[in-house]
């Protein structure tokens, strides 16, 4: 691949400034999505603005009723964080099934949500937990953030600074791994807080991650049995060389029940 100009930003403001001044500049986080796309020439930025030197973008903290994760925190750190394990253990588990060890050391949560790959894991957690994506300009609710395949509400020059996850009463994530890439063929994240439950599905929607509202409404009580009768229609579900839409729709049902069982500390 070609040598690009590379600038290591030292603060969020400076990164934002560089982004607006330099033509064809792009943010570089873990690079585990950006570099492959550059090699495939699906993207050809002239300048990469590296966020790895911006220290306040990294780290995990408990802030009141939420766990806040800095954008540059790698998946591996989330997976092993004592804070996350104590407050939202299944979020740590979700992070631990992303890719393989090398990917988890470098890929970041900020890169993952900004990229919004339709098969990525974090977007499902963001939607199910009702996370808030905090950028250098504003705070955006997850429901408004993920807008389509590889599309988000981020505007030009906007940088994800952190993601704030409200601590649920219960959460479970069930992922059917694509045997080749280890991305989600289907992943379902279920979270319960008080009287509401949210169900988010990744890997399946032809428009990217989405909330399965019928399932949310079906929870008379928060248990897998409540979802038993529910079937997902294959309309709007993605079919490709890994699996067709009908099967993915079926998987969504199974994974939703499994995630619910996991949230309750049971196996299904």
């Amino acid at each position: 691949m070609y040598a690009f100009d590379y600038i290591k930003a030292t603060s969020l403001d400076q990164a934002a400034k560089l982004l607006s001044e330099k033509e064809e500049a792009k943010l570089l986080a873990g690079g585990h999505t950006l570099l492959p796309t550059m090699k495939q020439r699906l993207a050809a930025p002239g300048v990469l603005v590296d966020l790895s030197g911006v220290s306040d973008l990294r780290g995990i903290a408990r802030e009141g009723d939420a766990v806040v994760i800095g954008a540059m925190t790698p998946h591996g750190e989330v997976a092993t964080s004592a804070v996350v394990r104590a407050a939202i253990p299944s979020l740590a588990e979700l992070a631990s099934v992303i890719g393989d060890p090398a990917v988890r050391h470098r890929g970041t949560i900020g890169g993952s949500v900004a990229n919004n790959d339709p098969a990525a894991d974090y977007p499902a957690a963001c939607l199910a937990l009702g996370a808030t994506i905090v950028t250098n300009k504003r705070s955006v609710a997850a429901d408004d953030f993920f807008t389509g395949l590889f599309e988000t509400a981020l505007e030009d020059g906007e940088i994800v600074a952190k993601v704030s996850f409200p601590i649920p009463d219960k959460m479970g994530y069930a992922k059917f791994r694509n045997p080749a890439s280890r991305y989600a063929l289907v992943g379902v994240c279920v979270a319960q807080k008080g009287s509401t439950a949210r169900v988010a599905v990744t890997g399946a929607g032809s428009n990217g991650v989405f909330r399965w509202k019928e399932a949310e409404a079906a929870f008379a009580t928060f248990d897998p049995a409540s979802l038993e009768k529910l079937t997902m229609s294959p309309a709007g579900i993605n079919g490709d060389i890994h699996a067709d839409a009908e099967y993915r729709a079926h998987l969504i049902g199974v994974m939703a029940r499994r995630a619910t069982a996991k949230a309750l500390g049971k196996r299904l």
Partner: protein
Amino acid sequence: MSEPAPAADAKIRMRLNGREIAADGSRAATLADLLRETCGLTGTKIGCETGDCGACVILVDGRQALACLTPALRADGREITTIEQRDDPLLERLRRAFADHGAGCGFCAPGLLISSLDLLRRAPKPSRRRIAEALGGIRCGCGGALKAIDAVEAVANGGAEKQSAPAGALNVGRSMQRIDAQRAMEGATALGDDGAPHDCLFVRAIRCPFPRAAFAAQDIEAWRATHPGVAAVITAADIAGVNLLAGEPHARPLFAQGEARFRGDIVAAIVGERDALARLSPDDGPFDWTPLPPLTDAARAADDGVRAIDPRRSGNVAMRAHLRRGHVAAGHAQGSLTVEGEFETSAAAFAAVSEKGWAEWGGDGVLSVHVGARAYAACRDRIAAMLAVPAHAVRIVPTQRAGGGACDPATPALLALACAVTKRPVRLCCAPSESVAAAMRRPARINARVSAAADGRLVAFEMRGDFNAGAYLPDGADPAGLAALHAAGPYAIAHVRCRTRAILTNEPPAAAGGAAGRIEAAIAAETLLDELAERIGMDRWAFRRLNAIGHGDMTPTGQTLAASAGLPQCLDALKLDWEQAMWEAQMQNATHAERYRRGVGVACLWSGCGALSESGERRARLTLDRDGRLVFRSDVQDFGDGALTALVQIMADELGMPTSAFECETDDDTPARDAPPHFFVAGRAAMLAARDMRRKILRLANMGSRARLSLKGRELQAQEGETRRSIDLGAMTHEKGVVFSGDGVFSPAVSALDWDGQGAPFAAYSFGAQIAEVEVDMLLGRVKVLHVAAAQDVGRAVNPQLTEDRIRAAVTQGVGVALMQETDPGHLDAARGRIAPGVAEAPRVTVRLIEDREPDGAFGAKSLGGSAIIATAPAILNAIRHATGVAARKIPLRPDRLWEAMRLRGA
């Protein structure tokens, strides 16, 4: 706050393998570039470049990172550990253990080693499962990763190092290390463009972005002028000789003529600076494209009156194969039961590596091209014909290709042409997606019908197969022809009729090799045999045993198997495995929940050793020069299968010298052949070469046939009893430095096939049988292959360990064929679609070697075991049928397909 400096004047200071260094990072994009190009450390190997293969794992500040995805400037201020690190005791222990366990061919071995180092530093006593998880991101094609698990476990347990058999014992039959094991563990195996000089230009193909398109050149000079860094645009007009990549006149040209016939077809090439080329997309260049309607479905392309893909042909049926024995209709009539089915297999890419290679003009006026070509002498001749120079003006220097296999035939041609035009050394610039076009198995559709008598004897077999050949016929391979010959399986059947066609379409051409044709045919036949056995009410293993061919039996081509036909032994060796697996499955299914069901399947294979009706000679040459160098020269290449190691073992025993005395080189004088020599043929030629040299040495030394030889520097010693003679090689007369030479020539006994496909297409066959145990998740359609027991008749296992590894690797690939391998030819960027199971998903494999010696082979050897891939998919599919009742008709049997089929059965 100071303005950060851009990359142009970027110095990278890092601690590299314990030494502080400063490197100029301005021309390096990734850490892989920085290490390999700037620092000259090529031990970190590059496969896919996109994070999928895991070959390039290094440590950054003691944590694993993929060098191909780490920006170079991120290394600044860091501590980097690569395979070149030589003073870490743990890494040295791992290196030794890896070499002892035969872990790997040198492609991902460095990545496996570094990942293991990282693991053992964190967890000194990991469980097997944890090891498999830790190495799970590395997609290893040669089976190295499976052995790596054993090696890591051995190091963790501080176990004694594996002892090789004492020197002096016979080499044939001994599990010695690969001859290149040490180098592989140091990252010193020459792969791709590892050896390329620094001042190379780069060449990249201009590829058609549509499945079919007309193209027209724009003003090439004007385009070039606006693209700084581009030195030349090369078109068909620059080809002085023949624009063809294979010998046959309808073969694929390097540059498409008239229209581009598949997505990725090459129309011209650009030569220039690396950065300039890397910024271009594969279809960028001074050409206008007009997409035309493509013809991708083979069945449609074969219809009468359909447009011909190749306008010089009438119709698209490029090849027909036909085999007839007895009267198949009468045979069916005799049978008391008949089953039939139509099978469809998918296109599959089986490599996740990007193409690499380089070329340069030597001082002697010879153009040398460094690539992993399939048949390098043929490649040399084609390039000479393309450049209109004599064959001796071109040399192919074989390098190993990442992940095994051979390069796209266009790769050496592009390199040679660019080097000839620019008179500069040239390397290949190739986006990861481009290489997929070259490594494909094409889809096939097979109809088969089988009948058996009430006593279980097979009486008739009939099949028709259509093989989608892609836009050009594959070079030196004929899946359709091989399918017709092998389809009836290794069974005694009186009435056989097979008809196959290779059909041209607007899809990428098939890659040669990989048992194409035989796999598809075996899937059809073995699936139907299971259905038949069940209908007859016979045990499936016994049904095969009853019909298996053995010594003295006749094949469907009318060839009598005079010797080495070990299928009955293979089946017998699996009898206990079969009974136990069947019993266990029954117990499990009876006592456990309905959710998971066990199934057991069996399948047999046979495979002709060598290319189809390969007549004519294969040569090998052994020379001993005045400096005491003992060099083996042949057209054999090691594609990660350890072939050269086994050949050296054969020669060592025949010549009576230790294996360590041998060096291996390619022979520039080998006559061109379309396919590389099969191990059966190469082994025999090598043995004869050693025999010839030994005869000459003993004659000169005037010693008897039992004399032992040894070599100390320039002194050659012969000893028999008390008599000892020594020859000072340096003082001997010689021709070009060679004092002794040995020539081996072997022509396998084959005959051309007649109109009905009758004859002796192969001089020897390897046989095998496999039993697969699976567990099916009835709710999700997911299949877990628990265990495969593979018995394989290799004639003689020259190196049992290598042979077992080869069979394990083949079985693992076979799991991919059955369940996963499928590529969408419309989306060549589908890195996520290239599939073989990783180590964590690989099944447990038990290998049972059968040695029914082949009299024509060296020491009885006829194969290294790679054909085991043929039986794995059918054995798994039969096991799934046993578990679920679902008979697979579309392959791979992905979870969605299985789930839908189960649902239909249930409904």
